[in-house]
């Protein structure tokens, strides 16, 4: 039912775990496309029109009191407020800022069980569509297409909307989406007018997706990443797959490039070039795009390998020209040759050498805007990584802003690309493992939703050299549904490793989930016990060294394991940056940093939001010199 085309919105989708995408275009690679080389150099595609900026906005405390007809073409929105997009509704002052860790944000306020966990007939209808705590943001944006987009098919892309969204254009229903941290695209073409268009977006604070998005973080909602209109060139690479492989000699390799096209392809030629880092062209091909989707399948006698020390990237450029020789689009993408695998000694090796993960977990955070991060934030974070010998990042616990993946490619950061999934509130109860209503678990009605998340993550980011691991999610226990996610990644991408920690709590899935033995916060003694006892999988710590306040003592004991056990591969410190919110102190007027509970938000986990190596203002905590020392030593 989830892939059926729908002409009308239905609020009951909020209650149904089997409905998570309606009328969305399929997830595809995140390649950018331009009209010409000049646009590439300016990184400004005239196919794209940003809708970031001021939008009209109306807030409703629950679904019952919302203005249901606001999406209609003739709706009078003159009484709406103005809100900044991208931005969080809480930061705009409409809804209380709230931090909570394991518990669901409705703890102590609403009794909820995920649909079908209490029985196959327990569909929990109305749980969210009539939820008294399900706040609603109604957004309206009026726009006129830029001349450069006119005459093209046009889609809209939302890069991040929390938690569930409906969209309409000029009164026509576009679609519905969950999975807050991956892009959602809808086709606008049938409904566009030449003059002013009215886009309406209804964002709900909660839906069944809320059970899957219980990450230990401030709980927000709203359109928190970029929104763009994207014109489709007459013929367009809809999806691109770049597969560089490294041969056993680690000196030569092979490159396969495949593409899926949209549009009328007759007579169109794809010109593909590959250049080295100096700009020197090393490969070129021309192909008719009619039928063959394979644009390159060629061997390279000598290759430069990509790694943290030398993140060597090749420049791939694909130019589509029509039968008259006119350029339709130019697609640039940088890729690297690198090989990640587990060797015969059960050691993870990168390019034949043992991988040592000197990593951090990184939530996206900016004290001034919460989950809305800027290019400057991301660049600063990369600089901090490089300066302090941090070589790896786990995108805890959701896919990040797209630019972050490109930055990790160019800077040689090893990435564990994690799905948007954390459901610890369904199985961790006051410190004990109690999975009686765990989702996704093995509940059949929840499987498609988590598989969709896996697919969104894979399809969007598959071409990023920096990604060495796909991570199925965080702290969601283990069952058939997560096992299916594992199988999905194994099927679509044998070139990378799959990571999941949650099998530790349900070991019967150990054979079928995760290529690595992953733990969090295991003591050095516990790790040693595993490594001494006929270990079946290489070991890594997806979270360790909990840097809450004045911490990071005893790092030596972890680093010392690297000297003793080749199968110990390092880990990701928890975490990179404190989550705290910059506010004006009500007493002194000074700018100060506030944490959970400081907004009358209850139930809260208070200062547990601040566990970073960085303070929330992006200055380093004193412990960073210790991390720099040990991460530099290995």
């Amino acid at each position, binding site marked *: 039912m989830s892939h059926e085309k729908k002409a009308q919105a239905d609020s009951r989708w909020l209650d149904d775990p089997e409905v998570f995408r309606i009328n969305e275009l399929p997830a595809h690679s995140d390649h950018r496309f331009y009209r010409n080389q000049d646009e590439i150099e300016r990184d400004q595609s005239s196919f794209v029109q940003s809708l970031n900026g001021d939008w009209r906005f109306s807030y409703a405390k629950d679904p019952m009191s919302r203005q249901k007809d606001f999406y209609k073409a003739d709706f009078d929105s003159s009484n709406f407020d103005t809100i900044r997009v991208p931005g969080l509704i809480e930061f705009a002052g409409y809804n209380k800022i709230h931090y909570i860790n394991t518990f669901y944000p409705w703890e102590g306020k609403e009794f909820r069980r995920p649909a079908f966990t209490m029985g196959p007939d327990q569909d929990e209808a109305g749980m969210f569509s009539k939820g008294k705590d399900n706040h609603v943001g109604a957004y309206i944006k009026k726009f006129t297409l830029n001349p450069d987009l006119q005459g093209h098919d046009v889609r809209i892309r939302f890069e991040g909307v929390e938690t569930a969204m409906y969209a309409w254009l000029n009164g026509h229903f576009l679609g519905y989406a969950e999975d807050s941290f991956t892009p959602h695209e809808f086709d606008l073409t049938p409904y566009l007018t030449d003059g002013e268009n009215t886009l309406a977006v209804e964002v709900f604070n909660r839906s069944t997706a809320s059970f899957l998005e219980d990450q230990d973080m401030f709980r927000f909602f709203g359109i928190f990443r970029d929104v763009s209109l994207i014109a489709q060139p007459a013929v367009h690479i809809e999806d691109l797959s770049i597969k560089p492989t490294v041969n056993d000699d680690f000196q030569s390799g092979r490159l396969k490039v495949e593409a899926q096209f949209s549009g009328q392809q007759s007579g169109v030629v794809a010109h593909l070039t590959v250049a080295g880092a100096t700009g020197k062209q090393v490969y070129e091909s021309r192909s008719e795009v009619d039928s063959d989707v394979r644009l390159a399948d060629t061997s390279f006698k000598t290759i430069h390998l990509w790694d943290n020390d030398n993140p060597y990237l090749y420049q791939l450029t694909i130019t589509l020209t029509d039968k008259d020789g006119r350029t339709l689009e130019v697609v640039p993408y940088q890729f690297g040759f690198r090989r990640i695998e587990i060797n015969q000694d059960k050691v993870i090796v990168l390019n034949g050498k043992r991988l040592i993960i000197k990593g951090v977990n990184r939530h996206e955070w900016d004290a001034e805007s919460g989950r809305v991060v800027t290019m400057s934030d991301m660049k600063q974070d990369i600089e901090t990584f490089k300066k302090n010998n941090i070589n790896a990042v786990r995108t805890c616990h959701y896919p990040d802003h797209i630019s972050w993946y490109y930055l990790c490619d160019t800077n040689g950061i090893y990435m564990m690309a994690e799905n948007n999934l954390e459901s610890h509130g369904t199985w961790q109860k006051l410190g004990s493992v109690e999975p009686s209503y765990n989702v996704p678990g093995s509940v059949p009605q929840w499987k498609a939703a988590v598989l969709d998340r896996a697919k969104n993550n894979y399809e969007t980011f598959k071409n990023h050299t920096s990604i060495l691991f796909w991570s199925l999610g965080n702290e969601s226990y283990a069952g058939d549904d997560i096992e299916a996610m594992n199988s999905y990644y194994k099927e679509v991408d044998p070139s990378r490793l799959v990571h999941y920690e949650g099998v530790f709590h349900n070991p019967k899935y150990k054979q079928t989930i995760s290529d690595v033995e992953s733990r969090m*916060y295991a*003591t050095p003694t516990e790790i040693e016990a595993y490594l001494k006892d006929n270990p079946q999988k290489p070991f890594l710590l997806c979270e*360790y*060294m*909990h*840097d*809450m*306040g*004045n*911490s*990071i*003592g*005893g*790092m*030596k*004991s972890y680093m010392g394991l690297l000297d003793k056990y080749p199968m110990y591969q390092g880990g990701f410190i928890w975490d990179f940056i*404190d989550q*705290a919110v910059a506010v004006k*102190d009500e*007493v*002194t007027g*000074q700018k*100060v*940093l*506030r*944490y959970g509970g*400081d907004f009358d938000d209850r139930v809260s986990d208070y*200062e*547990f*939001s*601040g*566990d970073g190596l960085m*303070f*929330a203002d992006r200055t380093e*905590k*004193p*412990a960073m*010199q*210790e*991390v*720099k*020392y*040990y991460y530099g030593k290995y």
Partner: protein
Amino acid sequence: MANTSQLKVIYGDGTLGVGGDDFHYIFSYSRGGLESLVIGGKEWLYREPKPTFWRATTDNDRGNGFSKKSIQWLGADMFIDVKSIDVKVNNQLIDFPGAPLNNRYSNNEFVDQIEIIYHYETLTIPSATVDVSYTVTANSVIKVAVHYAGQKELPELPVFGMRFVLPTKAIGYQYDGLSGETYPDRMAGGVPGVYQIDGLPVTKYLVPEDNGVHMETNWVTVTRNSTKNNADSSSVPFSLTFEKVDQPFAFSALPYTAEELENATHIEELPLSRRTVVTILGAVRGVGGIDSWGADVESQYHIPADQDIDFDFVIKRGSK
């Protein structure tokens, strides 16, 4: 005529004064410590230095319950009993020079060296004893030796040191030790060197907690440019140096006591900074880091209560 090769001693009724070339120190009998430390006309003490046992609870301390286990040391840190005081002249114990025994002395008493030893007893159950000895020589240098006698029925200590509260806020300090904020289990990244710190920065942890410790220090010089003396309007900087004898020490220099830090839930709740709290530490507990909800600090970085702790240092005029 001033005698600069010897110390002049004033055997007061409530205090013992020790003076020399442009310095004068007063040891109080009733207040349990060194009440005045004047060099170059500038007072260096706000209240008497006392042994210190508490560190403001860190997030890890809270998570693993250490503060609850060691709670007796918070009381010990705030209040302490002085059981007795000994005085040694030129290394010889003398009869305690209180009234009326001090009638035997005059206004012209000179010695080569004098040592005042405070015998403290902690208000823990059971109590533990701490002896703090100040040895003054004519060159104005004070050697401070601190001895904690192990007491096996007490919980592990959060910290052990001597706390000096200076009357005004320092403009900065310089030290020869490790870079950054270091703890016994987090000092590998500290680079040895001489570091100048402006002001008295408090590490801005979200919840104020113990911070600013510098391990493996050879000396620290604290510089102020103000006093509480209404007749002194000079803003010319002046300095005092704490220096190791044999073993390096740890220290912190902050505008707050452990209790002031403990009491705040946010940085902005800390009082306006107006004094300098220099703590010279003989034992520091590690901060830990395995997790923040139960994991203990590794055992080699604990401070067991049942073992003696000794440390010493000297206090000297001026900069190093």
